[in-house]
């Protein structure tokens, strides 16, 4: 049992470090003034191209299709090294590279792949995802956006939501219903959509954090040529699954959150001392720390199985479930430590606003990318082998499912 790279992993890491030192030097520290969204997108395009040219954008792809033929562990190592820099990155890049391209490669034609993959890897086109809808979140199979065949085209109408940075995207991957009379997962078709097509309107959604990271996207008589259909008509669910397989990337490493709480506790006053003197504070911090470290080392155990070439475990679900759990509590507790005063940003606590943001954001993470309830189902069903929920919508024509 050790935390060290295997010899091959160590060699790869050394290679990546050298490459990063040379190619990411300008990103070694945060920008003097924060980038605007437009700047992030412009710089991101260039960064992706640089990685792709060196074969690092698509480490696990076969060499034949522009990849590197590397291992999942090498991809993890590359990401670990990337995280030491402040890079102009975001979903607008990963949706293209990790979702659109694999879906086109697996389900589209070679011509489609040739049309989109090189431009994506070179950063010439960046992507957004038009999947979720107001009535199709955890239950993605419930999408209602309609695509109706008209000659060589499809006419699309509907509303999508939770589309990250759709207003910066050149193209989108889109899931739409082409046969409302079929059972819900069988009437869907998968498209790529040029975001400049008339009838596409992306509006920002104001979130509870005050930010507008997401859009809702309205599609009104949008014309998509059939050449932009990926896979067969009615097989959109299978394509979407290929996409989503690639969505849940490695866990964000959150190490250090509780150590920062301990520092806060040390400077929070209590009658006769600091909060760190309180057995109550210590117990709360210890519980949070045990969760934080437990999930960190659980991540190491998953990496170990990746490193051994084993398939990804469905138990990965517990990482986000746990991280959002303790992070929501820890950020609340970061306020509690200063009692009433903890609710305000002041010169003494100049970064309190970041705590406020995190406390809101973690609640969002309990929902996004697999809600707590979905993750618990996944663990129960796919890890513990317990039966699925009874379904009321199986084998029922979509348009006959009660709304």
């Amino acid at each position, binding site marked *: 049992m050790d935390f060290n790279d295997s010899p091959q992993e160590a060699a790869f890491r050394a290679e990546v470090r050298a490459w990063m030192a040379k190619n990411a030097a300008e990103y070694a520290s945060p920008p003097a003034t924060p980038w605007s969204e437009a700047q992030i997108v412009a710089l991101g395009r260039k960064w992706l191209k640089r990685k792709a040219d060196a074969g690092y954008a698509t480490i696990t792809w076969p060499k034949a299709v522009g990849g590197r033929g590397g291992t999942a562990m090498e991809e993890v190592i590359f990401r670990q090294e990337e995280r030491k820099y402040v890079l102009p990155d975001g979903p607008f890049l990963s949706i293209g590279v990790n979702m659109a391209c694999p879906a086109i490669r697996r389900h589209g034609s070679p011509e489609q792949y040739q049309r989109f993959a090189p431009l994506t890897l070179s950063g010439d086109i960046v992507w957004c995802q038009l999947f979720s809808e107001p009535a199709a979140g955890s239950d993605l199979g419930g999408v209602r956006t309609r695509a109706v065949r008209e000659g060589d085209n499809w006419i699309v109408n509907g509303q999508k939501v939770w589309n990250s940075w759709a207003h910066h995207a050149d193209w989108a991957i889109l899931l739409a219903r082409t046969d409302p009379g079929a059972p819900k997962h069988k009437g869907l078709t998968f498209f790529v959509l040029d975001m400049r097509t008339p009838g596409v309107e992306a509006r920002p959604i*104001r979130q*509870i954090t005050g930010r507008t990271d997401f859009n809702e996207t309205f599609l009104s008589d949008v014309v998509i040529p059939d050449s932009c259909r990926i896979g067969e008509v009615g097989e959109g669910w299978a394509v979407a699954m290929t996409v989503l397989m690639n969505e849940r990337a490695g866990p964000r490493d959150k190490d250090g959150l509780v150590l920062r709480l301990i520092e806060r506790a040390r400077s929070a006053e209590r009658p006769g001392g600091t909060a760190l003197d309180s057995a109550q*504070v210590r117990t709360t911090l210890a519980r949070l720390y045990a969760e934080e470290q437990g999930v960190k080392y659980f991540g190491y155990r998953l990496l170990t199985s990746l490193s051994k070439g084993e398939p990804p475990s469905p138990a990965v679900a517990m990482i986000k479930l746990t991280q959002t759990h303790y992070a*929501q509590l820890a950020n609340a507790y970061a306020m509690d430590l*200063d009692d009433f*005063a903890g609710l305000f940003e002041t010169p003494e606590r100049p970064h309190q606003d970041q705590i406020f943001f995190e406390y*809101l954001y973690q*609640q969002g993470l309990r*929902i996004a990318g697999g809600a707590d309830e979905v993750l618990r189902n996944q663990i129960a069903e796919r890890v513990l082998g317990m039966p699925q929920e009874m379904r009321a919508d199986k084998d029922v024509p979509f348009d006959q499912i009660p*709304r």
Partner: protein
Amino acid sequence: MNFDLSDEQKMLKDQVSRMLLDRAPPARLRELIDAGQDWDPDLWRALADMGLLGAAIPAEYGGLGLGEIDLCVIAGEIGRAVAPVPFFSSICLAAEAIRLAGSAAQKARWLPGLASGEVVGCLAVNEGRGFAGDRLEAAVSGDRLSGVKWPVSDAGVADIAVVVAVENGRTVLGLVDLQGPGVTCERLKGFDELRPHHRLAFSDAAFEAMTEADAAQVLKALYDRAAVYVAFEQIGGAEACLWMARDYALERRVFGRKLASYQAVKHNLADLYVYCELARSNAYWAAWAMETGSDQLPAAAASARVSATWAHEQAARENLQTHGGVGFTWAADCHFHYRRARLLALNVGAEEVWADRLVGALAGGDAR
């Protein structure tokens, strides 16, 4: 056994509830936040016109002369609606402080204005980090006050502040006219967007001492009472969250079934219901103790505080969770409570403080 609100109190509850639904709907709250408003003066006047501000203020001072339970009922509805008014500061803290510790002249001078809403009061105790009243630096010398108080709820809209300070090593309580010289008020950037908080700086401001009694004891009694009012406010908020979540779950369909038919959702909301009812039951006990002057008040107030804080925080979080992505949008109403629950969890002291007071009261000693 008649451990329930009276019929009159239930009518009062409905009346306030309907009025707030009408005058302070969520759309109005969003408007106020976007406009950066500290409060809704129209709503304040409407509350005053209904006599609600003076509900527990004796008739001789222009109030309705009802009891503390009536005030609790109103606080509960304020919490349910997240109503943007300084009700807690002005009525449950400042007016209560004057009732508890003011001289006859001070009562006559201020209570009528507080009851009519023409005067807004606030309570200035905290001095930044640490717990309320633990360690005071604001000092009175003669009839002049110097020092800094923060956070102070609603100070920006208040005319007077009840201030806790030290004078010759002794805790004292007094009134300060916030329009007077030597007072500056700065708005703080806080987590709750619907209740403004401020830093009050006093520099030789005029200070009118309030009580001959031990101010520390008055403060303790005042906080017991404040905890009860806040508990009702929290329970109102928690119940709003519970029913909002339940209604959404009944309406939303997932995998062809009502969201409300999933056992995880059902049990989660059942637990919230239990938390709300436990808190409400403790809060009734505390309201009874307050109105009857029972010596059970310290234990009852702390019990209500502990259970109401838990209920409100859990309900605010799980309401948002039940709403899924929609709940994370500004356009939905979950976030008002998600933020407010944090404010009310801390504004009269965190759980640890009240756990300490509770066990102190039960163990026959005091808080540590």
